[in-house]
């Protein structure tokens, strides 16, 4: 059981590393959200699953699993709310040729 916990913690730390590199290296706000919104959720889920396996089937382990389920529900919701707030307040998206997409008005209110 400890070996499975160690493997899950290593996988979760790898996904945390991926999200951090994406947050530092991507060119604009939307692609940064794309990097962190998914890999942070998966990293938290894997890490907390490994720690719940290490804690065993007890009240504490069930609580850690409850935290994992809660993060799995709320982290995409927070990402979506933040992204929609940024799009409604006209943060310009990154394009390849440098022209702005703002003229085209992709989302009507």
């Amino acid at each position, binding site marked *: 059981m400890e070996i499975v916990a160690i493997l899950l913690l290593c996988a979760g730390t790898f996904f945390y*590393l991926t999200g951090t590199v994406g*947050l530092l290296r991507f060119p604009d706000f939307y692609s940064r959200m794309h990097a962190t919104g998914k890999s942070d959720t998966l990293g938290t889920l894997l890490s907390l699953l490994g720690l719940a396996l290490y804690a065993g089937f007890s009240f504490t382990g069930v609580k850690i699993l409850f935290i994992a389920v809660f993060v799995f529900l709320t*982290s995409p919701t927070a990402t979506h709310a933040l992204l929609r707030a940024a799009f409604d307040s006209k943060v310009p998206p990154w394009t390849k040729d440098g022209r702005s997409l703002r003229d085209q008005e992709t989302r009507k209110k």
Partner: protein
Amino acid sequence: MERFFLAVSILLGLFVFLCLYRVVFGPGIFNRLVGASVIGTKTLTILVLIGFIYGRIDMFVDISLVYALLNFIVTIAVAKYFQRKGAI
């Protein structure tokens, strides 16, 4: 096993410092908000690891749960506020 937990939590602390770059220097309010949200998610895992290291997991798991709730509410509230107000 406690040494492995200590190594993982030190590594996550290093990632927190790397994300702090985006909070301090990020252009605009939304990049800073993303960095703060990511730091909150990493801190939640570090709190559970600290509970295993100290041997008092029954106390630290409650702190981690409250931290998850608070992180979610803060992100939703600030996103709604800046959606109504517009980016600075």
